[in-house]
């Protein structure tokens, strides 16, 4: 079936409806830089795939040996056979391939599990763990194929009841075996944030295979939350940090930030530096406008020092671009 972009080829709409706007060279450069960043991000996934392939080469060898021993034991031990049959390889992807937040979520049993499999043209795709919270949605999957294929074979998309909410998304894969590999789809919705998500994922193969999955997943809540309601205005930048949540998946800071002049306005993405009471700077796991997620807290942390930064450019009607950079007021929160 043709997709919408092929259908749009047929439409030759009246040019009068489409007016150009003035664009400066700096604005063009900014758009190109953003695009490059998005494309490079995808390519870096490929690089990561290659490096994990090397690292996992040894791991797989050991796993195969261990698995062989297990199967051998199973032939003589019914108890061991039961253990073998229950090995949830598809349920291990978060632990093997995910960031620290996903590892924690998986170990704590907070992710939901699908297990749905589809086979077309001797390719089987199985949906594994799915996790959804205020910061992001992630879904693990495995691909088993008679012929060697890479992730480039598929056009992978997500949807909500057929439409794709505005988002950034990408995949992380471990393709150590070309016939049996795993991946995690990471989605950061821009503003879409339902309590229950009917997540659709499609894998469109180059030979026209279409693997469609659907899984309803309930938004997970963080264990702890502190309302901050900290606001500050510096020149024309106004921001408010709403709250900080933390728990198994990490620590999540929620905010709004707007730059507004009389005839100009834009949303601003803030970057936070979070340092814990042992002077450890927490690593970012994911970010988008209004949310930034950091690695989970250690058990003995009693206090966090948080410094927000705003780095953005503004462009007025005459095309003039001005770079703005502010280190905003740091603040501390006590972890009970």
């Amino acid at each position, binding site marked *: *079936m*043709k*997709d*919408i*972009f*092929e*259908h*749009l*080829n*047929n*439409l*030759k*709409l*009246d*040019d009068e*409806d*489409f*007016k*150009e*706007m*003035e*664009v400066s060279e700096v*604005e*063009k450069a900014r*758009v*190109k830089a*953003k*695009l*490059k960043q*998005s*494309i490079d991000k995808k390519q870096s996934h490929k690089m990561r795939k290659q490096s994990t392939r090397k690292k996992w080469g040894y791991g797989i060898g050991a796993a195969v040996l261990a698995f062989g021993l297990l199967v051998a034991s199973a032939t003589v031990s019914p108890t061991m056979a039961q253990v073998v049959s229950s090995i949830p390889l598809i349920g291990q992807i978060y632990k093997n391939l995910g960031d620290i937040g996903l590892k924690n979520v998986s170990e704590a049993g907070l992710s939901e599990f699908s297990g749905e499999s589809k086979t077309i043209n001797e390719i089987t795709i199985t949906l594994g763990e799915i996790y959804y919270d205020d910061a992001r949605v992630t879904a693990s999957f495995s691909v088993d194929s008679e012929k060697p294929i890479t992730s480039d074979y598929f*056009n992978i998309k997500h*949807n*909500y*009841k*057929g*439409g*794709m*909410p*505005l988002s950034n998304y990408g995949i992380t894969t471990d393709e150590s075996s070309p016939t049996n590999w795993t991946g995690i789809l990471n989605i950061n919705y*821009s*503003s*879409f944030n339902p309590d229950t998500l009917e997540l659709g994922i499609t894998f469109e193969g180059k030979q026209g295979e279409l693997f469609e999955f659907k899984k309803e997943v309930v938004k997970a809540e963080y264990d702890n939350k502190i309302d901050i309601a900290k606001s500050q205005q510096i020149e024309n930048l106004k921001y408010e940090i709403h709250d900080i949540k933390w728990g198994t998946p990490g620590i999540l800071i929620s905010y709004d930030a707007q730059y507004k002049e009389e005839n*100009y*306005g*834009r*949303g*601003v993405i803030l970057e936070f530096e979070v340092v814990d009471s042992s002077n450890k700077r927490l690593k970012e796991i994911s970010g988008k*406008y209004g949310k930034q997620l950091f690695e989970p807290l250690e058990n003995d942390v009693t206090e966090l020092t948080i410094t927000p930064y705003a780095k953005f450019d503004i462009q007025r009607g005459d095309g003039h671009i001005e770079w703005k950079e502010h280190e905003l007021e740091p603040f501390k929160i006590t972890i009970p």
Partner: protein
Amino acid sequence: MRSTAHNFIKRLKRQKEDALEYAVDKYLPLVKGITYKVLSPLGNPGLVDECINDVFLTIWHHANQFEGDTDDFRKWLCVVTKFKAIDTYRIANKRVEVEIVGTNDLDVGSSPSVENEVLVTENKNELLKLMCGFEVIDRDIFIMKFFLDMTSEEIAKNIGLTKAAVDNRIYRGKKRLKQQRTNNNLGGILHERYL
């Protein structure tokens, strides 16, 4: 080799980044104009920036689905941009959907709000599947109406039919979709919203 007006489409299809840069240089004013017109009422300039980025990433990822020459590319880009901007607007506006449930909803001629009907961003793929059997002209009308948020007058002007003829085709198309939905037992495929 660098991209030029003569080779940038081929290079874009081969995923050459300089072709995307060429497209930004040449078409950003147009993409910005279309995006701004649709999204400016929301008063969120960040959304315009996000949508522009999304449009260029879309043509990067879907370049192979484009067919035609440079003139056709401009037209395709305009339609893709409008489609993305409408989609962004609908999501940002968190519009409420209403499923067609009764035959009265199909009565194009008598519904006072029919010109304001829009398809919510959900279920596009299902709708496209159902439209596979449509004549090309009817499919184009449906895409203009439900995906590009165009009025019947605008559609009529673009395809050289009268408004009554467009309304009539929409009426018949919707009736057919409803019938197909009943036959296929695919409840909840076509959603409409009344403003």
